[in-house]
């Protein structure tokens, strides 16, 4: 196996990396060894005056290190050793006696960017696929092959921290503006420019690099005091967002700071040590598992022997409300399909079109698209109060009000105007797909697509086939969901599907805790500290109390007493409190901002805030209802694999990623412990805590969700 090709012309050695048998280049031990040998040879070869390094892949440079190698690491010293040897290679390149120029087209991430940073001159293409970044912290790691040393030295501490701590990727133009790249060129001339630069550098020319940022930048990036301020502010920001649950950003910060204080060599040593600790740590392991699970999910259509999905060129959306408009806007932006929006009257269509356009406008405002692309995307959006144009729709998603009769009627209308091969998806969070399809003329073409609100931002999509849904319809819905940029999980057609099913008892429990006198902000604070992005009460306000009431009611009707809603939410709804959307909920809102818990809620609920349950009990009750219901739902086959359930919980309602998901977390705690804790809660708080059969069986047999 040879990943590197070498060709010498006019004293410039052109090294091309093309890892065989892979669609993208990643850096494995083998590639590193080959690279080391290659540079050794180039050092010896007197005819070589400069080196030009390029990727042989069509649209990718180097996507990063080979993560599979991290999984195999068993100890911190072993991990440290792995990056130390990589560091030595890049040090060799950085100190290479002949200039090394790198041409970057396509993704240049993690170890790929660290490699590029070690080279002496970087040329990037202005193609949208060219992205440069250090995503290591997203895997619970830090850039440990010099990234924490070379990037801040090249572009300044502040800009480097922005990239390293967020694990962010920058587009080529931005990377060039920041100074990561020396030149930004069109794709067809990349090779010529790289070769020319190599020749110039070999002739003694040196690039002039100016760092942007002005006087303030100089003070903050170049003075010890300024740096201390920068590091302190960054540390505070990291603590505020990670709540101490994710060690990687702090470790990366430390590596950068240590290197700034003690020099590159010491900095590299510190990077390696920290990498060793993180790589075998629990958080990174979980995040790497999630990375692999998400990657695997992207290739999975959720049904055995899935047929090829139908091509969707045109999407019809019925219902121009918040959901429908969000679906339309996201579909245009992400999948670049032609979208026709339909609602009962023109003013609603107009508002829906405006809301969908806002999704496109936002991309323009964030400079993700040019104004010409924007104009083209906006022109893909149209609407009417009739079903005109639906005859050409390959997929129609209905997002009308959650009412069975209405949905059945709308499905009938859609069937009357679409071609027999069209797929009709129904966006519902609580109504069984089988009921919606029961009156349909073509029930095999009907499938559930449960989007989460707001559609443009929420990354999850549940696809729900009914018993009668044709396999081709399922793969079409899954494929289109993916084109919309969603992580797609196929779930069984049972009330609440997966996410709402496990969310309902959690919401209910939060309500019970409030009624018992627990402080609203305290409950939320505990769950945020545990790792949720927001607490359950805030989530209720965000989702909408009326929506939550309805959804929890459906689950209560389906599953009985166990999922009996707490009376707290209905009482608030009766008081006209719908949450953030009408600026009245558990919290107070002013000017669209949340302003602390509403003191009148206690009065309304007839509760004297007495501190309620102990913090530990609050946490235990809220977490265990989730784990218990997730285990039960898994036992019912709502998801096919623990992987699907965990990923859906992560992306669907923000279950803490570093805990891996509810099923993974249940495995970590152990079924025996869960069962005994649940039994204790049952005695104290009633049968809703009764451990489900799946956990009881696991406790008995000592099995787990993941083998």
């Amino acid at each position: 196996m040879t990943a590197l090709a070498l060709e010498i012309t006019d004293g410039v050695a052109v090294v091309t990396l093309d890892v065989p048998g892979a669609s993208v280049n990643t850096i494995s031990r083998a590639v590193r060894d080959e690279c080391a040998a290659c540079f050794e040879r180039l050092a010896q070869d007197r005819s070589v005056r400069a080196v030009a390094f390029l990727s042989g892949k069509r649209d990718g440079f180097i996507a990063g290190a080979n993560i599979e190698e991290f999984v195999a690491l068993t100890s911190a010293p072993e991990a440290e050793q792995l990056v130390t040897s990589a560091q030595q290679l890049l040090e060799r390149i950085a100190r290479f006696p002949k200039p090394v120029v790198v041409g970057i087209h396509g993704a240049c991430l993690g170890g790929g960017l660290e490699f590029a940073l070690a080279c002496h001159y970087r040329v990037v293409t202005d193609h949208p696929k060219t992205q440069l970044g250090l995503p290591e912290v997203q895997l619970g790691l830090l850039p440990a092959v010099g990234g924490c040393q070379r990037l801040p030295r090249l572009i300044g501490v502040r800009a480097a921290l922005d990239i390293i701590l967020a694990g962010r990727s920058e587009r080529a133009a931005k990377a060039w503006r920041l100074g990561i790249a020396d030149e930004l060129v069109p794709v067809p001339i990349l090779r010529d420019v790289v070769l020319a630069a190599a020749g110039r550098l070999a002739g003694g020319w040196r690039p002039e690099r100016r760092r942007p940022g002005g006087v303030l930048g100089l003070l903050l990036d170049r003075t010890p005091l300024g740096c201390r301020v920068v590091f302190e502010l960054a540390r505070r920001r990291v603590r505020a967002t990670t709540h101490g649950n994710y060690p990687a950003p702090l470790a990366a910060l430390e590596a950068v700071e240590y290197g700034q204080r003690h020099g590159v060599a010491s900095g590299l040593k510190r990077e390696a040590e920290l990498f060793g600790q993180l790589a075998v740590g629990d958080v990174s392991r979980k995040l790497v598992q999630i990375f692999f699970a998400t990657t695997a999910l992207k290739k999975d259509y959720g049904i055995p022997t899935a047929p090829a999905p139908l091509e969707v060129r045109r999407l019809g959306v019925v219902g121009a409300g918040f959901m429908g408009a969000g679906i339309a806007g996201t579909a245009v932006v992400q999948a670049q399909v032609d979208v026709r929006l339909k609602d009962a009257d023109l003013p609603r269509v107009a508002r829906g079109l405006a809301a969908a356009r806002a999704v496109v406008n936002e991309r323009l405002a964030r400079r993700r698209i040019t104004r010409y692309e924007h104009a083209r995307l906006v022109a893909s959006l149209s609407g009417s109060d009739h079903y005109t144009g639906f005859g050409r729709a390959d997929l129609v998603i209905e997002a009308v009000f959650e009412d069975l009769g209405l949905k059945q009627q709308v499905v009938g209308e859609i069937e009357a105007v679409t071609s027999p091969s069209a797929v009709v998806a129904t966006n519902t969070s609580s109504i069984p797909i089988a009921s919606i399809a029961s009156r349909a003329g073509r029930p095999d073409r009907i499938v559930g697509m449960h989007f989460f609100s707001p559609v443009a931002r929420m990354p999850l999509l549940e696809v729900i086939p009914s018993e009668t849904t044709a396999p081709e319809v399922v793969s079409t819905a899954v494929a289109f969901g993916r084109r919309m940029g969603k992580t797609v999980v196929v779930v069984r057609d049972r009330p609440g599907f997966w996410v709402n099913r496990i969310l309902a008892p959690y919401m209910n429990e939060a309500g019970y805790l409030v009624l018992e006198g627990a402080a609203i902000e305290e409950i939320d604070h505990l769950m945020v500290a545990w790792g949720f992005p927001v607490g359950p009460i805030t989530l209720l306000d965000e989702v909408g109390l009326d929506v939550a009431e309805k959804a929890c009611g459906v689950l209560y009707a389906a599953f009985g007493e166990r999922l009996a809603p707490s009376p707290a939410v209905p009482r608030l709804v009766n008081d006209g409190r719908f949450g953030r959307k009408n600026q009245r909920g558990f919290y107070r809102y002013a000017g669209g901002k949340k302003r602390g818990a509403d003191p009148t809620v206690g009065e309304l609920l007839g509760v004297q805030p007495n501190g309620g349950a102990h913090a530990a009990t609050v946490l235990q009750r809220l977490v265990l209802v989730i784990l218990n219901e997730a285990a039960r739902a898994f036992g019912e086959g709502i998801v096919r694999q623990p992987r699907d359930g965990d990923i859906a919980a992560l992306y669907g309602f923000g279950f803490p990623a570093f805990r891996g998901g509810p099923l993974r977390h249940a495995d970590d705690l152990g079924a025996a412990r869960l069962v005994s804790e649940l039994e204790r809660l049952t005695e104290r708080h009633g049968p809703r805590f009764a451990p489900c059969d799946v956990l009881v069986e696991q406790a008995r047999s000592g099995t787990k969700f993941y083998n």
Partner: protein
Amino acid sequence: MPGAQGRRVAVIAGCRTPFCRAGTLLRSARAVDLARHVARELLERTNLDGRAVDEVVFGQVIPSPLVANVAREVSLLPQFPRDIPAYSLSRACASGAQAIAAAADQITLGHTNVAIAGGVESLSDIPVLASRPLADALVSASKAKSLKQRTLPFTRLRPRDLVPVSPAIAEPSTGETMGQSAEKMAKENRISRIAQDEWALRSHTLAARGTDDGRLVAEIVPWFPERPDAPVVTADNGIRRDTSLEQMKRLPPVFDRRYGSITAANSSPLTDGASAVLLMGEDTARTLGYEPLAFIRSYAVAAVDPGWQLLQAPVWAVPKALERARVAWSDLGLIEIHEAFAAQVLSNLQGFAGHGWTLNEDLINVMGGSIAIGHPFGATGGRLVTTLAHEMQRRGVALGLVSICAQGGMGFAMVLERA
């Protein structure tokens, strides 16, 4: 019965935006936006896949210098593949009709099978130009190398050179405005003020009726304004239900204050709007499963000296078209005459009568005309063809005529037939 040669051209469908008085509901839209909207909605209404279209032709009289070929911007809509050729043309007020005729010719010749032809005008968005001296100064300054060279050209400007220039609706060859020409025609043909006002009132009354009973509204695609809180525009806003002869009588003449008869009430208003028509070869329509509204039987254009009666050329175009169609005036069951001015319509009718033709007003402009509905120059031809084809179908009329007068002393006529 086939056309003179080649295959028959079917009018499959047509639609238009609401026609709105310039500076009102469509003022924030550019012409290109209106044209793209109407073409896209035509696809929607016909469930036609954009990939089936071979050519796009649009008429526009005052194009924006920023969008010189509006038709190409239409054919670059995301609903179309990017390889549909498109061009824009001008035959003044007959531009939309000329676009239809030009596209039809290509179908007859077998060069294309499916075409979208239409027209657009935004008189809210007309180009405002720099005066020639200012333009010259700007051009020399842009070529200058030094600060001195850059400033020098401006020192020669006079204050009046700074006044922007906008296109006037006047004949370049005679300097006569359209209104002055109409005034002249009213006098020469002895068209009375009262006759003009009555024709204008008729236009409003019939247009209101056509709107209220839904016939006109059915041809209109709603316009969604950029601002979500602004109301959706669903109907023409120039049609008046509250006017009367008494009110019209009180209006002063605009172009000849002393002896004139042309007023704001008996002229067509400056208007924004777009229209588009879907055309197919008869065989293509059959293959694709479309039921034609009508077929284009013939068309003809004539011209007269613009210094004579500027808007009287239809009197020569119509007999030419009838002759090419091999039909007689008396065979026509419906007639759509563009109403630039009531004086022009009545002059045209006088001219037709001069051919020995019997006039039956009940067949003419049965849903009103441009005086009430409005006249976005490039878009009027598409409106007339669409309205005529639909009404012919509703009434079961076999032959219909479109007659349009145009700037430059030109006249356009087209004969449509059903089955």
